[in-house]
C-alpha cells in the first residue's frame, strides 16, 4: 500500500503503551479529545503539548513517524490557520497593513486550532502505531459490550470490521489489476478527460462489485463449512485483560482534563 499513508500501520517496539488493553487505549483516545477541547489558554496548550509528547515518547517510536503522520494534512492546517487569522477580529491588532489588520484573537485561535489538529492526528497515529487492527477491533467490541442491553449487537459490528480489514487490501490490489486490464483495452483512466472518466469508471466498478459478491458467496460457504453460526457461542483465544497500567493510563487523561480545564 501507499507509503505516504503512514497512519494505520502498526509499529512494534514493545513499549508499555503497546501492551495496554485496547479498551484502555480507545477510551483514552476519547478522553484525549475532551482534553483537547478543554484546552483554551496558552498555558493549557503548553501542558497539552508536554503531556502528549511525553506519551508519544514513552511508546519508544521515533517522533519523526508522528510528524510523518501529520504531514499529509499540513496544507489543511495551514489553510485553517490563515482563515482563523484573517477572520477573527478580537483583541488588539498585532500587525497592520494599511486598512487591514491581524488581531491577537485571530492569531491565538489560529494557533490553537493548528495545535489541536496536530495533536489529534498524531495521537490517532499513536493509537494505530501501538495497536494492531485486530486488537482495536476487539477493543471496540469490548467497549460496546455494555450496550447489548439496548439491543446493540457488537459481535456483528466486529465481524463486519474484521472482514473489511481482511479484504480491503485484497480488493485494492484487485482494482489495480482491473485498471491495468481496462487500460490495455484503451480505457486509461488517468489519461482521459473528465467527461469520459465517468463512463470508464463503470468498467472498473462493475467487475469489482461482481467480484465482491462472488467473494461474499464463497466466504459464506467457507465460514459455514467451518461451523460458523451467527450468535452461536464462541471461545476467545486472545482475550483482553485489564491491568493496573490500563487504569493508570485512563487516570492520566482524567487528570490532564482537569488540569487544562483549570488553567
Amino acid at each position, binding site marked *: 500500500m501507499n507509503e505516504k499513508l503512514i497512519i494505520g500501520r502498526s509499529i512494534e517496539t514493545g513499549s508499555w503503551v503497546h501492551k495496554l488493553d485496547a479498551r484502555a487505549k480507545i477510551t483514552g483516545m476519547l478522553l484525549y479529545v475532551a482534553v483537547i477541547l478543554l484546552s483554551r489558554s496558552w498555558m493549557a496548550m503548553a501542558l497539552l503539548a508536554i503531556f502528549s509528547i511525553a506519551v508519544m515518547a514513552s511508546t519508544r517510536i521515533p517522533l519523526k513517524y508522528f510528524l510523518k503522520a501529520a504531514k499529509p494534512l499540513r496544507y489543511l492546517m495551514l489553510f485553517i490557520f490563515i482563515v482563523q487569522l484573517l477572520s477573527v477580529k478580537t483583541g488588539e491588532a498585532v500587525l497592520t497593513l494599511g486598512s487591514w489588520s491581524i488581531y491577537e484573537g485571530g492569531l491565538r485561535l489560529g494557533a490553537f486550532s493548528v495545535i489541536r489538529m496536530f495533536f489529534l492526528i498524531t495521537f490517532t497515529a499513536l493509537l494505530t502505531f501501538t495497536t494492531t487492527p485486530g486488537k482495536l477491533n476487539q477493543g471496540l467490541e469490548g467497549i460496546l459490550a455494555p450496550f447489548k442491553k439496548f439491543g446493540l449487537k457488537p459481535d456483528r459490528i466486529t465481524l463486519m470490521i474484521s472482514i473489511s480489514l*481482511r479484504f480491503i487490501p485484497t480488493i485494492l490490489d484487485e482494482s489495480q489489476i482491473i485498471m491495468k486490464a481496462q487500460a490495455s483495452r484503451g480505457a486509461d483512466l488517468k489519461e482521459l478527460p473528465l467527461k469520459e472518466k465517468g463512463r470508464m469508471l463503470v468498467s472498473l466498478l462493475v467487475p469489482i462489485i461482481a467480484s465482491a459478491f462472488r467473494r461474499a458467496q464463497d466466504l459464506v460457504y467457507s465460514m459455514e463449512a467451518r461451523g460458523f453460526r451467527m450468535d452461536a457461542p464462541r*471461545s476467545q483465544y486472545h482475550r483482553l485483560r485489564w491491568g493496573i497500567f490500563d487504569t493508570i493510563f485512563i487516570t492520566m487523561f482524567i487528570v490532564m482534563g482537569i488540569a487544562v480545564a483549570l488553567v
Partner: protein
Amino acid sequence: MNESYEGQGLEGEGQAIISLDGVSFGYDPEHPILQNITLSISQGQWVSLVGPNGCGKSTLVKLLNALLPKSAGEIVVSGMQLSEETIGSIRQCIGMVFQNPDNQFIGATVEEDILFGLEGLCLSYAEMAERLQAYTTRLGINHLLSKHPGELSGGQKQRVAIASILAMEPGIVIFDEASSMLDEGSRNDLLGILQDMRAEGKYTILMITHDADEILASDRVLALHGGGLAADVTPAELFRDEELLQKCHLCEPYPWRLTRELQNQGIHVDVPASEKELIDTLWP
C-alpha cells in the same frame, strides 16, 4: 436426461462414512442439476469426483454438509442422517477446502484464520494453542502466523486453508478443485500433503479434480455426467476408457497416452512408470 451407472460399485470394505440415497437437487424444479444419486464411500477411502464443468460436482459436495439444501433423498454422514438438528455435528465431521485461495481466507492474518474454526468449536485456550502449533508446524506455515493473506502466495494460502480445516480434526476432508488455481510447484506440494494425510489413515478424502496425477493417486473415481453417476471405477479403468474420458472432459496422463499411441503403432507395452522403464522395455 438422467444417467445412472449400473455396475459394480467400489464401496470398499470399511464402514460407509458417507452415503447418499436417491439424492436430487435443483435451483429450479424443472431443471434439476442432480437426480437420484445413490452412492456410498467407506471410511479411509480416497475418492476422486470427476465430470465436465457444470455437471454438479461442486453442488454435490455442498449437499453433504448442507451448504446447499437437497431437494430429495437421504444423506447419512458418520452415522448421522442429515437434518436440521444434525447440521452442526455433521459440519464438524467434514472439512472443506475450496478452489479460490483468497475467498476462503477468513482471518486478517494466518493465525486469525486458523483460530476462526477453533473458536467456533468453543475449545479451551490450551487446546487451541496446541492445535495451532501442531498444524501450522505440520504444514510448514508457522513462520507466517502474523502475515496478512495479501503477503502470501496462492500455494501458501491453500496450505493455511488446509491447516485451518485439519486443525478442526474432521474425519472427512473434501477438496473442491483445491489445486486448480495454483502453480505447478504448489500443486505438487498439495498432492504431497494429501499423500501424507492418507498415510495417517485417519481421513476419508473426497477430491473434485481434473488433474491426472491427483486422480491416479486416489483409490476410486466417481464420474458425474448429465445429473447422475456415470461411472464408479478405479483410476486405471478410467484412463483406459476413451469414451468416459471424453465425457468427463479429461485427458489421460502422458505415459498412458503414449502407451495407447504405441499400441496404435502395433507396439504393446504396459504403462511405464518412468521414461527409463520404457526405454529398457523397448530396447533392453
